[in-house]
């Protein structure tokens, strides 16, 4: 079976597509970290990438394909590389694009804004009151800069890691 992509000119964006279940996590992680290294990403951004990749992939594994097994694709675009020139992207940054073909969902702007606000307001709440849900999306939005688009039947989430690519947290 020919891959579905044969009509496209490649853009030097390495990519991996695997079944959307937990077993696929290590392979995605390995590829992302290998390219983070090649892109010269500083350690703090590598760690954020690692975290955000786990959060977004776990969400796709568990929520994107209710009752069926779908796929998810990771593409990596080091700055300055690829067919399209990366305008103004500083060296040592890496863009990560995650595509799934599951239910439409924008993780950067959750439908349930109330829950989100509740969570943020809740950050300093006591142990008893603290709800564990929603933390994955919260970390995603806090530690990565990115954009979401529904393209045809696909969710495409693009996240960029590197200097000036994530809101400064804490400091």
């Amino acid at each position: 079976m020919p891959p579905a992509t044969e009509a496209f000119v490649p853009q030097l964006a390495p990519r991996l597509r695997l079944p959307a279940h937990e077993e696929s996590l290590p392979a995605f992680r390995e590829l992302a970290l290998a390219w983070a290294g090649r892109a010269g990403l500083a350690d703090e951004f590598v760690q954020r990438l690692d975290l955000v990749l786990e959060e977004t992939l776990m969400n796709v594994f568990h929520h994107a394909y209710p009752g069926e097994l779908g796929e998810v694709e990771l593409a990596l675009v080091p700055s300055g590389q690829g067919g399209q020139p990366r305008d103004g992207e500083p060296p040592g940054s890496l863009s990560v694009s995650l595509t799934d073909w599951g239910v439409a969902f924008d993780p950067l702007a959750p439908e349930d804004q109330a829950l989100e606000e509740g969570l943020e307001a809740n950050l300093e709440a006591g142990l008893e009151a603290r709800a564990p849900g929603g933390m994955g999306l919260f970390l995603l939005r806090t530690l990565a800069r990115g954009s979401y688009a529904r393209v045809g039947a696909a969710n495409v989430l693009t996240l960029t890691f590197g200097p000036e690519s994530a809101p400064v947290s804490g400091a």
Partner: protein
Amino acid sequence: MECTGSKQGAFYVLEVTGRMDALTSQGFETECQGRLEAGDKRIVADLSGLEYISSAGLRSILSAAKRLKAAGGDLAFCGLSGIVSEVFTVSGFAKLLPVYATREEALARS
């Protein structure tokens, strides 16, 4: 993720190393539950060897902390660095739970 522990005065010190991710973090809650059943209600988790934590790790920690508190004990932390420290800060866990810079400070509290 690996947990190794020892009794230090009134506290049980748990050294957590490696990665606390979706595939491993349940082990932390299980470990704390085991200590609680063995009679240790006051646990200090030394995270200086922990390289990584995700929301699954936070879930496991929150759940362990609630259990220990319900039993009249507590769960404190020390040795946070890098992404672990960052995640504790942005998630609010650093304010929700007792976090100390060093193990000595964590053990010196009442």
